[in-house]
């Protein structure tokens, strides 16, 4: 399992990277591994509000569905439409395959740095 040292993480296994004022959000390698082969991603629409700690979409494997939790509060300004056709990108390149971008960020959940996240994963495993 890899942890990208440049990212921040939520306890529910999403990662966040700030590009200026925009929060870029994806799921961690730990998350994709636990979920197994992903077959579909339900994404919000551009313009939708997201709230820190609440679901903004979900990912499906063959036998399960898991909520995607937003680590920030704000407005969706871009979605990664490529994932609709190629959900396997989340398995193959979890830190490259971002899911949504959020602007007007007004609130952020308490996030973990790479080291703290590694400890969090070790505790959950």
């Amino acid at each position: 399992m890899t942890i990208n040292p440049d990212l921040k993480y939520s306890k529910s296994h999403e990662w966040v990277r700030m590009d200026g004022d925009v929060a870029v959000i994806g799921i961690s390698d730990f998350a994709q591994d636990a979920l197994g082969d992903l077959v579909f991603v339900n994404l919000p629409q551009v313009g939708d509000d997201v709230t820190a700690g609440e679901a903004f979409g979900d990912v499906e494997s063959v036998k399960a569905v898991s909520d995607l939790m937003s680590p920030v509060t704000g407005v969706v300004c871009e979605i990664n439409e490529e994932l609709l056709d190629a959900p396997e990108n989340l398995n193959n390149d979890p830190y490259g395959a971002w899911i949504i971008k959020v602007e007007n960020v007004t609130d952020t959940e308490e996030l973990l740095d790479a080291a703290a996240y590694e400890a969090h994963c070790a505790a959950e495993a």
Partner: protein
Amino acid sequence: MKLIFEKSVPGRRCAILPACDVPKVELPADLQRETAPLLPEMSETDVSRHYTELNQHVHGVNCGFYPLGSCTMKYNPRIDEEMASLPGFTGIHPLAPKGAVEGCEEVIETAKRYLCEITGMADMTFQPAAGAHGEFTGVLLIKQYHDSRNDKNRTKIIVPDSAHGTNPATAAMCGYQVVNIPSAPNGCVDLDALKAVLGPDTAGLMLTNPNTVGIFDENILEITRLVHEAGGLCYYDGANLNAVMGVVRPGDMGFDCVHLNLHKTFATPHGGGGPGAGAVGCKAFLAPFLPHSALMEEPGHIQVRGFRGNFLVVVRALAYLLTLGREGVPEAAQNAVLNANYLMACIKGTFTPAFDRICMHEFVLDLSEFKKATGVSALDVAKSLIDYGMHPPTMYFPLIVHEALMLEPTETESKETLDWAAEVFRALYELGYKDPAFMHAAPHNAQIGRPDEVKAARNPIVRYVKA
């Protein structure tokens, strides 16, 4: 196997209809179909052989052991089929005048009377077409009841975490917020957890008893009392009624409404996924809220499908009830429970029951220790059973047991079949230690190997397209 479309030959057809003996009428051009649909073009021989080939790759309960937990795969009597195909039933128009349908009404009324007696209910509808549809109808009874009292604050339905997925999905379809409560270690309702969530916002509770791990909840009277005390109503999911019919009645347990799966408990065939019938019974105070057909009966009622429901399924269930009668109904339940306990006892010592105690009509094996020791999963065991010609049990359900296999033999299996099944399970247990790789690759003798479900979901091909 070739698809039917791959066997189609342009211009070939069956001789079914005479030429039209009245003048043809042209459809206006703007209403006409632009291209003919790509339907198979076949001779009757082609049609017969195609479906016979498909039929050879289907396993039905009348063909072999089918211990699919929570599905009550009991033998489907042939006489029930014959009765359901009488022209005096199949040829009756639902909107024919009352005097022409007295026999149909007698079927419905008689089945209703018997099933109300078995469930301890006062009235019943046969409009719902399946179990989940019955749940929907039943919870709508609860909703109408609260609405009729202008009790608008009851927004929550309580569902145990061991419940079938249909229970929470149904509550959501009825506009309720679902409150999941954890089960006690024995799989039954945790009374403290229940008390903690009951309140003025409780609309009702949905429960199966015996529950999804095959245990009769001995606190049932206390459970229904607590819900009623909070002002909620109690819904009985009849998925597991086969264990207790004629022995104890949902009405006497304190339930207000109930659905029955006629295609499980009352031996009507499941047809590879329906038609079923989800009869819904209720106590007298809920009867005014039962569904009706807008066209056949008085308006102003809810309605969950057209006309009166899957009538021919009710005919089959009535034939079954007439056959069993007052002694046969409890006899079926008792032997269903006996068979489950016997099979569990025979398997014990190899695979581990999740709850080592007397069960009802079904029991759950917990293969997590076995998997740790051998690497062989519940899925591997299930797939290996196929090579023995046995339909696998329900897998990975209920969710509260890991590596679960849920077995429901039903009363129509003989001791010989159960002895054979136990032998197969014991053999697979040993094989898991000797040759786990063989089991990972099972089935070996089926028509296909394990299908790639990830591929099917990532790139859905859901219809044939002519190359």
